[in-house]
């Protein structure tokens, strides 16, 4: 279970000065569901997910994953999650098997269980053909499979995917989305960010539309359609953000307030 309350993150940027990437964002995600973070580039999705994965610290608000706070109990949180993004690479000089085994050991899996687990994952993801191939020689699709295997080797209850289909072709993307859906069916709590509306429509049980660091709408797809009288998610998205487009981005002029929360 993921609880995010009033999450705020501010940076200092040379040109923009104090820049608030996330402004009091709140949402939750439940086991057996895929929660989608939908938004254009620069909306704050990656920042939010990096905070969930404990790579960044929030400036304000609280985030808890399965009862553990991401700031004060970061080590426990990392045991609970598997994280994958377009930026997470694989090691060029390790084979696929070595890499997944390395992370399995870091997650504390005993050797006997690790081998069995990896055999199961490699079979399910059809990776046995290239298990002993070095990372530098793998194709994009294979590399993505290795990243997924690495993220799920320790069977975490929570999975965080940050635009995982970026740079992948249609076939590989489809396979990846299918895998994510299967993981949801296994009861995982999944947060999935994307800027591709069709992915969100096909995959997500609940969606939050993020723009300029704020959540503009949140709920199941049916709820959003009913609320805004718009069937097409893409049109709904443009409808929500078009009102913002005519006003200056408030984040660039915000001075940092006292530590919230």
């Amino acid at each position, binding site marked *: 279970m993921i609880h995010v309350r009033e999450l705020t993150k501010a940076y200092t940027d040379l040109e923009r000065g104090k820049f608030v990437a996330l402004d009091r964002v709140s949402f939750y995600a439940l086991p057996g569901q895929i929660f989608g973070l939908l938004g254009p580039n620069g909306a704050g999705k990656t920042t939010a997910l990096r905070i969930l994965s404990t790579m960044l610290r929030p400036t304000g608000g609280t985030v808890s994953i399965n009862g553990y706070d991401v700031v004060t109990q970061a080590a426990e949180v990392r045991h609970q999650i598997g994280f994958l993004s377009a930026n997470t690479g694989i090691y060029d000089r390790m084979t696929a098997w070595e890499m997944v085994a390395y992370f399995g050991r870091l*997650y504390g899996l005993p050797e006997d269980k690790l081998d069995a687990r990896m055999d199961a994952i490699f079979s399910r993801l059809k990776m046995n053909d290239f298990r002993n191939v070095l990372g530098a020689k793998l194709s994009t699709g294979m590399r993505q499979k290795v*990243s997924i295997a690495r993220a799920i080797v320790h069977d975490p209850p929570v999975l965080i995917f940050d635009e995982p289909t970026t740079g992948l072709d249609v076939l590989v993307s489809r396979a990846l989305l299918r895998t994510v859906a299967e993981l949801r069916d296994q009861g995982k709590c999944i947060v999935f960010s994307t800027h591709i509306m069709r992915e969100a429509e096909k995959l997500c049980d609940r969606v939050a539309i993020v723009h300029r660091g704020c959540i503009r709408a949140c709920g199941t797809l049916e709820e959003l359609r009913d609320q805004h009288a718009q069937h097409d998610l893409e049109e709904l998205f443009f409808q929500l953000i078009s009102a913002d487009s005519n006003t200056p981005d408030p984040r660039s002029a915000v001075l940092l307030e006292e530590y919230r929360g």
Partner: protein
Amino acid sequence: MNWKNIRLIFVREVRDQMRDRRTLFMIFVLPILLYPLLGMTFLQIAQFVHEHPTSVFVVGPLPDEAEPALVSGSRFAEDLFEEPDEARLLIAHRGTAAQLLVEAQRQTKPKPAAHDKHRAPQADAAPAAEKESASDPASEPSTLPDTLPETGPETEPATAPATEPSLTAVAAAAEKLVRSGAYQVVVYFPPDFAPRLQDYREALLAHKPAEARPALAIPSPQLYFNAAQEKSQLARARVAEVLAKWRSQIGERNLVAGNLPPGAASCFRVVSHDVAEAGRREAAMWSKVFPFLLLIWALTGAFYPAIDLCAGEKERGTLETLLSSPAARTEIVWGKLLTVMLFSMATVMLNLISLGITGLFVAGQLPQFGPPPWSSLLWLLVALIPVSALFSGLCLALAAFARSTKEGQYYLMPLVLVTMPLVIVPMAPGVELTLGNSLIPVTGIVLLLRSFVEGDYAHALPFVPPVVAVTIGCCLLAIRWAVDQFNSETVLFRESERLDLRVWLWRLLRDREPTPSVAEAVLCGVLILVIKFFLGFALAMPTDFAGLAKTAVVTQLVVVLTPALLMTIMLTSSPRKTLLLARAPRWALPAAALLALFVHPLANLLQQAVLKLYPINDEVAARLESMFEGPFNVWAILLVIAVLPAICEELAFRGFILSGFRHLGHKWRAIIFSSVFFGLTHAIFQQSVITTLIGILIGYLAVQTGSLWPGIVYHITHNSLAVLSGRVTAAEYERFAPLRWIANLAGERGLSYHWTVAALAAWAVLSLLYWFHRQPYRKSPEESLQEAIDHHAAQSLAG
């Protein structure tokens, strides 16, 4: 910390590096090939290395056969050299002063046309004004006018010709000739040199009494050379030796002429015996080479793997993967650190072994170089671990800061520039292993190693603990810095920014926080040091109190206060908060004054210990003493030495700079860093050590009370006591009986407190510090956050 994770990361990183061909080549193949190739090249070149002859123009009349010969043909007399063969290294060209002028004019004329260049030199002509080249054909003299005598000593008339050029003209001509490079040295014998010598000798031979002999006022031969040219310096040294020998021979002859034994002037010879043990001479040579190589290879061997492990991982996108794993940042740093250390040590060992083996073979070919002693390798291996740890920590911290491998490589040069002086200075003659030197990082290791390689164990062993302690301390600091870099979001996820100075300045003014940032605090500290450095040249060194007062006022107001105040106004939105001008808690001011009073005896003892470790130079001590000589106004001294520095320095260091460092999130780091700047600002090193420690105390007061005022009161009290106790004379000591209960007189002036007083004072200090510790102080937001994290981390570990 989970050592299992550290081991996993270490094993993975090592395996990854071992699969990189470039790393394998640099670490293993290059050392094995490099030194044998260098050795081979060295042996090949050695056969071409030999000493080249130098040319000397000897001007003026020389004595006749009555005196020992100076010049014989185109060489100096062989008996004037240690070995007759050395005579070939000096080629003598004789001529008159007029010929010197002619030659000088000729050499400084424009060069002849191309066809003249290939004119074959005549057998005994002087060399042309040729350019310097490696294979210097200096043995071929150039052509002089036909009127010049070509060989043999010159037989000039006793009196100088009427047209003899003046000394000024001769000097000018000699200057031109030497600068042109045609001759390396010109030796000018004044016209009356030979006649005077001859007259004196004749008087001795005629056994004339002393009062009847002419005055022994032989005019000095003038020797012209060019110190800017190595060849000229070498020629000068050779000619000086020859002339000294010739002078001895003349002196011996004078003694014989005066019926005295020839050895009367040098009635004894000194015989030297080299008692160096077999191999120690070679050890002395290698003791300078090996430590230098150890540090250089440890640094470069650490740097490139560190860049690949940190900046390279950022570029490849695998760092984010690792950061999202259960491994803590500290564990990641330790795993990478051990990897970098391993490669640093491997680089050193392989290079040293290869160098040692090559050195053995080269030494066999060149008898003047002995082989390196095997024990030296053992000592180097022992020193390897702390040295590698230190450089690995530094390199890792710098590498973590870099966004890419390209950027990371730029950081190597500053690191080398900082390290090099610490490595090279110990090589200078006169720099010995002392307690003071052993406390300097890197330098202490080099000096200790030198002593061990030379076999001087008895001298070196007592310095092992301080060197080890300082090195380990620096290692831990470097590792701490690396961990901080890995914990910094701005470092890990920093993106490229286009630097626009206007935008940057506008942002500085637009986005002012109530208190300065860490970077602004560092900038202020550095500015103060830089301005002080340059102002030190503009201000005259004070020699009395008036001068001292003037220097102190200018330094405090211009160097210390002005930058801090300007930066406060321009860069912060709350000067009151920045400068800690809030009212202090009740009793804090008298408590601070009491604390200064009780710390004073301890500071006094500490100062004596520091002066024993690092004695002040006599000249500096005398100058310091002169500033307070004579009658003085106590209030003036207190104003200049106590009040003014207290206000200015507290506003700068505990105000602006400490406020900035509080954003680090650790109270003690802020206090220590601001104190280091405070200490460095003081002129004398011995003073800097004490003031840094006192600065920590004052910083603590400022943080605990949230106010600058207790620190100002402490500072005034401390400085006043230091000045007043340092001026106590013997008469005053006798006059005030209570002084004898608490202290002895230290030399002619000043007090040295009894140990009992120091012990009681220590107890009082601890009590007062405990009282300050109990004061509820206001944490910065960063300190609050860090405390929450540490609290939860401790709970997790316990649970």
